[in-house]
């Protein structure tokens, strides 16, 4: 009997996903455990860890037309929105460290679960047995995790930016808050859930085929 050997692209992608998965574990361990420990043990040596937050910035000339090398008479290009990054020290207020750390734990948990499922799925494809019921469930799980990741990131950053905007209201920093959901991620999540159903049907067909003599 000839043994199944996966396509080179599948083998490379499986290796790549495994590399990213273990890399994510290393990054998660560093961000969630090593960095806070280092800060605790050597507070003067290590900088305060900060949380990067993207916020909309209000500029005085927002809405103005922009002169460009393609358009000498300003008519076409209009500056409508500007966003910027704000670095929030994690020890800003007593509860902020707990909130930010918990958010990071949730984020990494979702990412690691997603990568774990993706890695197992690729391994099953490499072994030549992609159509089984567990892979269909796994693919649906990938979609749900991606959806959760997109919504969680968007809602948490919106909540954080609203909090920062309120805190900086008396200053002259022209930032605001806006809900940014990663709609591309949501779309991919829906595609994955749909594909999971195709997989489930494929698995049922393959099982039936194996019992045809």
């Amino acid at each position: 009997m000839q043994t199944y050997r996966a396509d080179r692209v599948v083998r490379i992608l499986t290796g790549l996903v495994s590399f990213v998965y273990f890399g994510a574990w290393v990054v998660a361990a560093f961000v969630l455990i090593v960095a806070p420990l280092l800060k605790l043990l050597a507070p003067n040596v290590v900088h305060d860890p900060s949380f990067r937050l993207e916020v909309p910035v209000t500029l005085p000339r927002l809405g103005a037309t922009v002169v460009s090398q393609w358009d000498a008479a300003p008519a076409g290009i209009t500056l409508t929105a500007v966003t910027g990054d704000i670095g929030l020290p994690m020890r800003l207020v007593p509860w902020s460290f707990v909130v930010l750390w918990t958010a990071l734990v949730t984020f990494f948990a979702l990412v690691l679960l997603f990568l774990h499922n993706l890695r197992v799925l690729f391994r099953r494809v490499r072994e030549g047995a992609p159509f089984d019921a567990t892979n269909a469930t796994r693919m649906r799980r990938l979609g749900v995790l991606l959806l959760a990741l997109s919504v969680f990131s968007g809602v948490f950053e919106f909540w954080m930016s609203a909090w920062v905007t309120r805190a900086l209201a008396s200053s002259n920093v022209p930032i605001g808050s806006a809900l940014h959901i990663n709609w591309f991620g949501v779309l991919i999540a829906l595609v994955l859930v749909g594909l999971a159903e195709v997989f489930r049907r494929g698995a049922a067909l393959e099982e039936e085929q194996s019992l045809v003599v």
Partner: protein
Amino acid sequence: MTIQVTLDRVIEKRGMTLTELSERIGITLANLSILKTNKARAIRFSTLEALCRELDCQPGDLLSYQDRG
């Protein structure tokens, strides 16, 4: 299933083993076992033809319908 495969009875009558039959008709022993133990969902005409040829029987000798109503 209400369709029962009576392969084991026919094999016994012919004094043949399952391994010998699998070699003669070119079907794996695992697939013949699926058929013999009534786990098969369907049987190909080509398989039925090969079985009838080697066992010198009719399709009706290999299959029976049992009403469970």
